[in-house]
């Protein structure tokens, strides 16, 4: 193994100076290296995960008991709103972009991303978006308090003057993810190593390619929606104001036209990660590669015609309700294909339970559970009862926390040794997994019950009969929050040192990323590899 490493070092040494990373802060500020930028995205995402998590702790502390005890209702609303915005746009999406930056060039045998300068920009505008958003919390009047979905007229007529800051923050986040997506597409289309045909692409690359197309299709629509909110609020337009001939329900149509594809933006790369990890630790090829590609594409296409399942209670005509109900249920077919393929991959494999695999198996089970509650919500008449209750909160946390976040954790543990050259502390990582697994269910499972019993979401107080369940939920919440600190410790320790790992960290792993040394050298695949 050491020979590979030396060879890479030799290669690097032959190049001139500018190929070596600069020192200190400037290295990170000016970097155009995909690995540096990938790391920046991942560190940023982890930071946001902790900040958004702290807000969740405030929410759960307030909801520990019925009644209002810790925070003002207006501040509570700011917490639910900014928690949602940070987790979606600050934690999950940048984490996937970070993984794409790190892994896509390595997986397709490209020397870097196609547009490295733009890559630098798309990362470095992101912290400003979140500084603006977070700063608005400290201004007179406070930050956004209208929910991450910023429905008009809450965000127009009834919001405070800091709403402009929210709008600009979302604009910047949108521009950042559009640039990131464009970069991914150009890289995958133009920089594949010779012989890397479409149907040889690793699934993580495929799912990201499709996600990137979703991103460039719907992030501009989000930008349009916030722009209309801005002009309605400050420039006397009436897009969403009935007094001037507009319609607040139209806001919901525009928002969810973005919003539903957005939830798939947060899960398709997760599918890619799980499809990479499960074969490795089952020591088998992925079952049904081609069907995975087609399933992902059809999920992406269908995601454009289901948006109004978020709006069943807005008074749509029956024909509309039925259309969106059936279209939504149709999505569970390709989703079912994926789950089937993962299980079939594990079937009769020689499975071992390394930490990435543990997270992947938990993903498969718990994400499917979230899919089932989604199906329940898709039943129009039932949704009239479930809508805007904790049942919805339970649904989307199962698909997003035990889905998207667990896949990110799985991916992080899977590639961390490749990034750092060191094995992480396995005992601590297993503690992190088991504590997370138990606490996440204590946290989110009872939400199904209080939701079915009618507890509304986004309210700082609740009826007495929900008290016991909410106390349990909050305890689960604190436990889950604290468990994530273990993850921080594991990552930090792994970056500092640990047992050295070979190029091919996991014996069942396949793919070009395992052919470069560990840690991956600063420059890789400057001459494209040979694809068999």
């Amino acid at each position: 193994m050491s020979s590979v490493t030396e060879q890479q070092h030799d290669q690097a040494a032959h190049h001139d100076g500018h190929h070596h990373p600069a020192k200190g802060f400037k290295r990170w500020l000016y970097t155009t290296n995909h690995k540096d930028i990938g790391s920046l995205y991942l560190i940023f995402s982890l930071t946001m995960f902790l900040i958004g998590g702290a807000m969740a702790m405030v929410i759960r502390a307030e909801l520990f008991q019925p009644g209002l005890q810790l925070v003002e209702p207006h501040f509570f609303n700011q917490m639910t709103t900014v928690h949602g915005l940070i987790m979606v746009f600050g934690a999950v999406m940048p984490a996937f972009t970070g993984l794409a930056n790190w892994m896509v060039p390595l997986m397709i045998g490209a020397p870097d991303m196609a547009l490295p300068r733009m890559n630098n920009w798309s990362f470095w505008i992101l912290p400003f978006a979140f500084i603006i958003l977070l700063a608005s919390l400290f201004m007179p009047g406070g930050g956004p308090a209208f929910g991450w979905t910023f429905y008009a007229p809450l965000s127009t007529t009834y919001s405070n003057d800091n709403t402009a800051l929210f709008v600009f923050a979302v604009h910047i986040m949108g521009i950042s993810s559009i640039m990131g997506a464009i970069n991914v597409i150009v890289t995958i289309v133009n920089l594949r190593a010779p012989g890397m045909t479409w149907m040889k692409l690793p699934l993580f690359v495929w799912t990201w390619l499709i996600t990137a197309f979703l991103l460039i299709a719907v992030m501009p629509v989000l930008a349009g929606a916030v722009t209309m909110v801005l002009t309605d609020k400050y420039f006397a337009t009436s897009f969403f104001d009935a007094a001037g001939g507009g319609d607040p329900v139209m806001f919901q149509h525009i928002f969810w036209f973005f919003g539903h594809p957005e939830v798939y933006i947060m899960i398709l790369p997760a599918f890619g990660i799980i499809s990479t990890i499960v074969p490795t630790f089952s020591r088998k090829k992925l079952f049904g590669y081609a069907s995975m590609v087609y399933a992902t594409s059809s999920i992406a296409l269908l995601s454009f015609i289901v948006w109004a399942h978020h709006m069943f209670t807005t008074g749509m005509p029956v024909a509309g309700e039925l259309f969106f109900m059936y279209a939504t249920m149709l999505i569970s077919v390709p989703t079912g294909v994926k789950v089937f393929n993962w299980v079939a991959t594990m079937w009769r494999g020689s499975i071992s339970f390394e930490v990435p695999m543990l997270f992947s198996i938990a993903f498969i089970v718990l994400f499917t559970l979230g899919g089932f509650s989604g199906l329940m919500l898709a039943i129009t008449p039932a949704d009239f009862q479930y809508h805007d209750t904790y049942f919805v909160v339970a649904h989307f946390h199962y698909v997003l926390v035990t889905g998207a976040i667990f896949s990110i954790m799985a991916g992080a543990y899977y590639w961390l040794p490749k990034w750092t050259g060191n094995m992480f502390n396995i005992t601590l990582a297993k503690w992190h997994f088991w504590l997370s697994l138990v606490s996440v269910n204590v946290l989110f499972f009872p939400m199904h019950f209080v939701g079915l019993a009618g507890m509304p979401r986004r309210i700082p107080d609740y009826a007495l009969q929900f008290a016991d369940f909410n106390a349990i939920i909050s305890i689960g919440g604190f436990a889950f929050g604290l468990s994530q600190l273990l993850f921080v410790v594991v990552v930090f320790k792994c970056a500092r040192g640990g047992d050295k790992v070979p190029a091919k960290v996991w014996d069942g792993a396949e793919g070009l990323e395992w052919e470069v040394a560990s840690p991956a050298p600063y420059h890789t695949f400057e001459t494209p590899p040979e694809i068999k």
Partner: protein
Amino acid sequence: MSHAPLLKRLVVICVGMFAFAFALVPLYDVFCDVTGLNGKPSLEQAKQSTSVNEAREIDVSFTTHAQSGAPFEVQSHEYSVVVKPGAMREVLFRAKNTSNEDKVMQAVPSVSPGKAAKYLHKIACFCFDQQPLKAGEEVEFKLLFYVDTQLPEDVEELTLSYTVFDISRQIVASN
């Protein structure tokens, strides 16, 4: 390999989708107009009716309410009227500005059940225009309408609801 051609195409998609978000606004109205969904009746003067169906009778009720904080009282003289499809009918509304400032009022109509919206035709309506009302002023407004003879059989009664808004601020802002 040159990235420019692909890059250009992707940027065009982005710009196009940004424009599409705004295109959704008229598309949404067109869609509601064509299908009559959303109970969103037309704000344009309708054509005169050409025939009357003497055999049917439709119950039309009126409700009005002021959007929170709008200082107007608007009330129809009759609570409800019975009309034959195709027959013209006039209804008077009394509107009062209850504040001590000059205001501009905009009434927004809505019809329920929603699918009946495109069968209620207004020849004259105070909702077609912005209505300036002086402080404390009280005026009579006229609504002239008929129900289309094509109104689906299962609709026997419908409600025309007006929400009135105070748009004085918007008017100042846009001037």
